[in-house]
Structures are given as structure tokens and as C-alpha cells.
């Protein structure tokens, strides 16, 4: 039984101690999955780190109680705390790509961990490791155990991570966003595994996540956090079914439903940036439209990449990322592209923006043919007409440039506005349009939150006066409430300026809300295409049905209308 009482964590800084979390109470019984939900900055990972004693320096536990069984976790010495880690408390990290040592075999890492905590020989440790991998669901474990982490797929790697956390038979496992980096199919398998381990082995799980759908699916109890404080806590059924705290209600309302389409997303607390702002920028955009919206036609498009060379004399087998794809985006509509990782959806974005050359096939933007990357010069008009919003707002803005310079770049690059003063003015108006304060223009990207940065990225794309916008997972790095804001913004832009949007995502609920038509990609082929309503109401392909059934959703009766 893990008991957390009045926990407070502080980070010393130049201006005195900053309180990261305070008054956190939580009790996790054996066999229980306790969900800890909140948006980024809520302090949920800090709770987990405090329990396992791995707070990032210089953070420290300032008050409260932490007890596991009858052990006082705060009273332990450094050595005792380290011995306890793994032995009684373990942890699962978010990204299986980075949480395993790439230079050691899975066997080395497992055996080492087992031997660190129990006095067994290599043979016994090896046997336990193999048994565990089998239990976790890795086929042919006795052979696979000799592999290095990179030889496993993402989902299998997360299983290995779980096996590592489990191999010492801990009482508590802290799972910090264990499925965020995984595809839906893999996510549901991993969640099932966690549920099973809690039931059969009586392990207490602290499941830290920002995804309420995940909580609804597996957690027994849930604690909602915001700004380092507990907002609401109790049984999952109770908290999500009849939320008492307004924040919980708002958080749930921001989650897009899978089974119906809503007009606008509810937003917990709208950020600054008034309605009716940025009129000048709006006029400028409309002025550039000067006519109808532009569609996109793609016919028999294939993309191949060079494969790994396996023989000296044979040419390497090319890897085909896209197989004869054909589809059409109607002018002024939003086309959703759905697929799991490796389905080729990002390759599609690259080939349309002219970063990758197609092996065969044709592309047409409006009536004009769209040449492949090699034939498409720097000055080709499509370089301006097609713009892109990337997934990660942290790396898609140059951190050494001020926002003003970032926004002015498309204006001079495409020769849209000649005069520097006018460019700056327009950039300021555009910031207004996307809902950012005017003083943002002289700041640097790191001074903004993820959602604000994504707004800047959208503003930059718009300042090129595009006719066709490609959004590659624009909200998957963002919290639900921020996601709702960005999606609302994109919807408005599409409605007001007749923009045509290609919306790439792995998240089915978002597609349902955003797209008019959609295609489902799998291993470079189109599994299903049609209007969004039709696909969701009556999915034809087995694969689409599977994806739909695996997407974690809240039970209908818990949903809150926006």
C-alpha cells in the first residue's frame, strides 16, 4: 500500500523556492490502478518522481509523508533509497525508443536488474528473464532475448520496458505516460497488459497520463491535478461519471468524442486574443485569394526509398513507402489522412511539399501539375501555395529568431510585401488573428507555451498566403484543451478563407471532428476512403473497424456536451 499525504515538492531558484506540487494526497492499494491525470505543467510526473526518489535536481520534497507498507520513504538514506528502487518501486517511461540502453542486449539488461536485487546466479536470472518475456507476450523469448533494443518494434520495446520494471517483483510501478508514444492498437495491448498485471500479480500502478480516454479504460481510481494541486479524486466511475470540480468538467468537455461530430470544441479557459481581432490580416488574406479554392488530385502515386544493402552484388531492394495512392481533395474541404506509424502518412506530406521525389504517379494542384521534388525548383509557385504545419512546435520554430522575423520571412521570401515596416505590421495583425497578444512580436519562441507556438506556426504558414495547408499531426504534442483551441482555429480559417487542408493524424477522434473526407492508410496503401461521416458510421475495411474499436473512449454517459 503506497500512501502519499500532504506531499509538497519545491524547486529552489534565484527568486526563492518555487512550489511544484503541494497538498497531494493519494493512496494506492495492491492490485489497483490509480490514474493521475492533468495537463502539462500540472505536476503529475513530479508526484511519480518524488515517490521513486528521482526528482530532477535541484528539486526536493519539502513536506508531507511518503510511506510504502511500513517503510517511510523520506527517512531512507541515499543507498537505501537506491536499493529500494527496482526492488519495491519500479517505473515505466514514456518513450520505449529512448528508455532502453541501445548498446546492451535485452538479456544483459534484464539479468543485470534481476541480479542487482536478488542473490541468484546467471542461469536462474536468465530463466526468470525468459519466463517473464513470455508472460509479457514476446514470442520465441529464449531467442529474442539475445536481441538489441533496436531489433524490436515500438510496442514490443515497451513490453521489454515493462518486463524490466517487473523483473524484480516490485509492489508499486509508476507508469509515466506509458502509451503516449504508441499506436492505438499497441496502446490497447499495453493497457490490457497493465490491467492483467495488476489483477494477477497484485501490483499497484500509478498511471500518469494526459489522456482521459486511457484513464476511463483501465483505471480503478483517478486523481485530477492542475497547477500542482489535486482538483478532484475518487473512483473513476464517480469522478468521470459525475465530476464535481469545474476543471474536471472542462477537461472532459475538451476531449473530442469519437461517435459524433460537434461544431466547436469547448475550451476550459480561453486564452487572450479577442474576437473580431486581426481584421486587417483577414482582409489581406482574402485579398490574396481572389477566386475559388484550390483542390488537389493525386493519381497512382508511389514513393520508394533505398533499402539496406544485404549483398555485395545485388542492388538493394527498395522500400516502398507509398503504393499507387490515388485520391482527390475537394477545393475548400478538409481531408483527413489516418494511419499508424509506418503507414506512410508523413511520406505523403513530404512528397506533396516537394521534399521527396515520387517514383511514379501524378499530382495536380488545382489544374497545374505538381512536379516531384527534383523537378520542383525553389521558385516554383507551389512552394508558396502549399504550406505546412508540423507536429512538434518546439523544434519547428528557429529558437534564435524573434517571432517578428519568423513571421516576416514568408512575406519577403515570396515577395508578397516589399517594405519591412509593412511586413512587421502585417505580422502583428496576423498574431492578432491567431489569438496572440501584440507584444509577442519581439519575443523568442522559448517564451511561449506549446499551444502558443503552434499558433505561431499556423500564422507563419498563413503569411505565405497558401491555398493548400498540410497539417502533420498538429496537435498530438499538445494538451486536450490546447488541442481544442488549435482545432477551432483551423476550422475558422478553413471556413473564412476557403483554405483546403490535408489533415494528417493518428487520432481518429480528431479526424471525426475536423475532416470532410478521409482516407485510411496502412503500409503505404489506402485501406478505405470516403466521406468522414460514412467511414465512421459504417466502416467497410476490417482495418478501419479495428482502429475504431481500439480507440479508447469514454462511455457515452460520461461525455459532456461541449
Amino acid at each position, binding site marked *: 500500500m503506497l500512501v502519499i499525504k500532504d506531499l509538497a515538492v519545491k524547486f529552489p531558484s534565484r527568486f526563492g523556492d518555487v512550489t511544484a506540487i503541494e497538498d497531494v494526497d493519494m493512496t494506492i492499494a495492491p492490485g489497483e490502478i490509480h490514474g493521475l491525470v492533468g495537463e502539462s505543467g500540472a505536476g503529475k510526473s513530479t508526484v511519480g518522481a518524488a515517490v*521513486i526518489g*528521482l526528482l530532477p535536481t535541484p528539486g526536493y520534497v519539502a513536506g508531507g509523508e511518503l510511506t510504502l507498507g511500513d517503510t517511510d520513504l523520506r527517512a531512507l538514506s541515499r543507498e537505501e533509497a*537506491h*536499493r*529500494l*528502487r*527496482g*526492488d519495491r518501486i*519500479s*517505473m515505466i*517511461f514514456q*518513450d520505449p525508443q*529512448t*528508455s*532502453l*540502453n*541501445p*548498446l*546492451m*542486449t535485452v538479456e544483459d*539488461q534484464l539479468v*543485470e*536488474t534481476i541480479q*542487482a*536485487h536478488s542473490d541468484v546466479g546467471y542461469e536462474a536470472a536468465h530463466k526468470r528473464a525468459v519466463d517473464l518475456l513470455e508472460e509479457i507476450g514476446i514470442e520465441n523469448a529464449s531467442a529474442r532475448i539475445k*536481441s*538489441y533494443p*533496436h*531489433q524490436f518494434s515500438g510496442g514490443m520495446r515497451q513490453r521489454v*520496458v515493462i518486463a*524490466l*520494471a517487473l523483473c*524484480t517483483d516490485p509492489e508499486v510501478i509508476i507508469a509515466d505516460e506509458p502509451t503516449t508514444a504508441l499506436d492505438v492498437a499497441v496502446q490497447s495491448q499495453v493497457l490490457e497488459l497493465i490491467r492483467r498485471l495488476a489483477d494477477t500479480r497484485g501490483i499497484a500502478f500509478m498511471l500518469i497520463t494526459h489522456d482521459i480516454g486511457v484513464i476511463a479504460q483501465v483505471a480503478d481510481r483517478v486523481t485530477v491535478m492542475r497547477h500542482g494541486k489535486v482538483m478532484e479524486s475518487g473512483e473513476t466511475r464517480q469522478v468521470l461519471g459525475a465530476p464535481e470540480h469545474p476543471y474536471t468538467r472542462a477537461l472532459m468537455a475538451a476531449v473530442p468524442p469519437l461517435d459524433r461530430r460537434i461544431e466547436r470544441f469547448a475550451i476550459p479557459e480561453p486564452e487572450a486574443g479577442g474576437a473580431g481581432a486581426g481584421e486587417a490580416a483577414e482582409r489581406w488574406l482574402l485579398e490574396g485569394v481572389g477566386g475559388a479554392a484550390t483542390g488537389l488530385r493525386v493519381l497512382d502515386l508511389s514513393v520508394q526509398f533505398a533499402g*539496406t*544493402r*544485404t*549483398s*555485395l552484388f545485388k542492388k538493394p531492394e527498395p522500400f516502398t513507402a507509398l503504393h499507387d495512392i490515388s485520391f482527390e481533395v475537394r477545393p475548400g474541404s478538409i481531408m483527413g489522412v489516418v494511419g499508424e506509424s509506418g503507414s506512410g502518412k508523413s511520406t505523403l506530406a513530404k512528397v506533396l511539399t516537394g521534399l521527396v521525389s515520387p517514383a511514379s504517379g501524378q499530382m495536380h494542384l488545382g489544374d497545374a501539375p505538381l512536379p516531384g521534388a527534383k523537378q520542383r525548383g525553389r521558385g516554383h509557385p507551389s512552394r508558396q501555395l502549399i504550406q505546412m504545419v508540423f507536429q512538434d512546435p518546439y523544434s519547428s520554430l528557429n529558437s534564435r529568431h524573434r517571432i517578428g522575423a519568423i513571421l516576416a520571412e514568408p512575406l519577403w521570401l515570396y515577395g508578397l510585401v516589399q517594405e519591412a515596416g509593412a511586413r512587421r505590421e502585417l505580422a502583428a495583425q496576423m498574431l492578432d488573428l491567431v489569438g496572440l497578444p501584440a507584444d509577442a512580436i519581439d519575443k523568442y519562441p522559448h517564451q511561449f507555451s506549446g499551444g502558443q507556438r503552434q499558433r505561431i506556426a499556423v500564422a507563419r504558414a498563413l503569411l505565405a498566403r497558401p491555398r493548400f495547408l498540410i497539417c502533420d499531426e498538429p496537435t498530438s504534442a499538445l494538451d486536450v484543451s490546447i488541442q481544442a483551441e488549435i482545432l477551432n482555429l483551423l476550422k475558422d480559417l478553413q471556413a473564412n478563407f476557403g483554405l483546403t487542408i490535408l489533415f494528417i493524424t493518428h487520432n481518429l477522434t480528431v479526424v471525426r471532428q475536423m475532416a470532410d473526407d478521409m482516407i485510411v492508410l496502412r503500409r503505404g496503401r489506402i485501406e478505405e476512403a470516403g466521406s468522414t461521416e460514412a467511414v465512421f458510421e459504417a466502416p467497410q475495411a476490417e482495418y478501419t473497424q479495428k482502429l475504431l474499436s481500439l480507440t479508447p473512449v469514454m462511455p457515452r454517459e460520461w461525455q459532456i456536451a461541449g
Partner: protein
Amino acid sequence: MVYFILKRLVQSVFVMLAVAFLAFALFRFVGDPVSQMTGVETSVQDQEKLREELGLNDPFAVQFYRFTTDMLRGDFGFSYRTRQPVAQMISARIPATLELGFVALLISLIVGIPAGVYTALRPRGVTSQTILMVTLVGVSIPTFVIGIMLIFYFGVKLGWLPTFGRGGTVNVAGWETSFLTVEGWRSLILPALTLGVYQLTLTMRLVRAEMMEVMRSDYIRFATARGVPMGRLYFRHALSNTLVPVITIIGLQFGGVIAFSIVTESVFQWPGLGLLFLESIRFVDIPVMGVYLVVIALFFVIVNMVVDLLYVAIDPRLRVRDAT
């Protein structure tokens, strides 16, 4: 794997050809070989005759072909200065330089890697700060000053160690080694230290920076969360990941140590390649300079190849994916 090695070999051949071309151009176009070889009293007819005999009137391509094939056969020509075969001069000097470079590298690794690890794990400790400061002084002072200071203190003032030459050497199968005599080792200490100090600082700072980066990575945090013993955590998990990029730099450095040991060798009158090169420059001994160029290039090529192979040995992700 075989493909990888073959590819690197083919690339190396081209690198060596390019260097051979440079050496040849030096030989052919810097000064006139005939006027270097003959005195003032040689008549113009005789000079022309010599030119014809030496094949200097042949087309450029033919001469270059002859130059490279001679090289491949081990015929490097004769020194203008000593009239000895260049091959003999170079091979007599190589052991001295290689041994010096090797010991210097060893010093830099044996001290540099642990010091790097230590300063990375205790970045704020007094000892770490002291080490960092002292080594910074080590890089800032030019090599020859360090050498002279060492000579002054240990050689002249204390009189503990010899200040020039290789001391006693033993000939093992044509290789003059100073590893087998006490006097040889004593002579080796000061020059190796001088040459190693700079490398040491670089190695240490590189290890430190990489190690600090690795210690922040998810897999180290995960290993800590699993309670992997600290010793294993630092040296098995963290250090091996640290070494991947460090090896490249160390490899290049070792090439540099060999190529630029000139200063140290001249300070300590160390009879190695560097000293030979300096003497050759003084006498415009172009054949020796050309061959020196080729030998050093060959050395760089070999070291780089070894580094690449080490890379593959350390990092399983670079091995060909056989069974997945």
C-alpha cells in the same frame, strides 16, 4: 559487413591516390630536380642527358604512373641530402614516432577518461573545478613551452630524467624499441607527457560533455529507477554510450599526434619522423618530404578505418540487421 569494409578500402585507395598526386606534384614542380642533383660545373648537355635518363621529359601521366608504381613496390627514391634510400630513412624513424605517439595517447586515455567521468558525475565539486582549471592551463600553454618547462624542472633542476634522445633501444626484428630498457622508458616519459597533455585535456572535456549528456538520457533514468548498482550504471551503461562519439575524435587525434609530433620531437631531439621532416625542410630534401606526406596520409587512413570498425563493434545498431 564485408561490403562495408570493401567500400572503405576502395575509398582509401582514392584518398591515397590523391595524396600521392600531391606528393608527386611537390616532387616534380617545386624546384628543378636536376639542378638540385648537379653542381654548377655540370654542362647543359650533361644536364639534358641526365634529364632524359631520369625520364623527366616523359609526359606527365607516364611520370605519375611510374611514381605510384615505384611507391607500391617500396621504391621511394633517394634523399637529396644523405643519398640514402628514402625508404630506409623513414622506416628507421617510424618506430620512434609511433612509440612516442602511442605512449602519449595512452597517457591521455588513462588519465583523460577517468577524469572526464569524474568531472561529469560531480560537476560542482571542488576537485572537478580544480581539474578543469588546471587542464585549461594545459591547453592554453603551447606545447614547446610545456616541453621546455618539463626539461628545466625534471631534467635540469632535479636531474631525474634525460632531456633528449631515446636512451637505450633494443632492436627487435628490425624495430628499434625503447620499451625494453629502463633508460628507454626514462627518456620516453618527458616527451610523451608533453605530447599527451594537450590530448588529455581534449579527451577529458569531450568525455565529460558526452557523459553529462548521457546521464540525462531516458535509459540512464530508467536504469536508476530499476536500482541498477551505481558502479554498473556509470561504467557499463553510461560510459559505453559516451565512448561512441569519443572514439572518432580520439582516432583523429592519434593521427594528429603522429603527424604533428614535430614540435615535441624537435624540443626533445627525438629521432622520429617529425625531426626527419624538419631536417628535410631545411635542406629542401623534396623526396623525403613527399614520402613523409604519403606515409602520414596512409596512417590517417588506417586509423580512420580502425575507428570505423570499432564503431561497428561497439554499436549494434550499425551492424547489418541479420535476424529481426
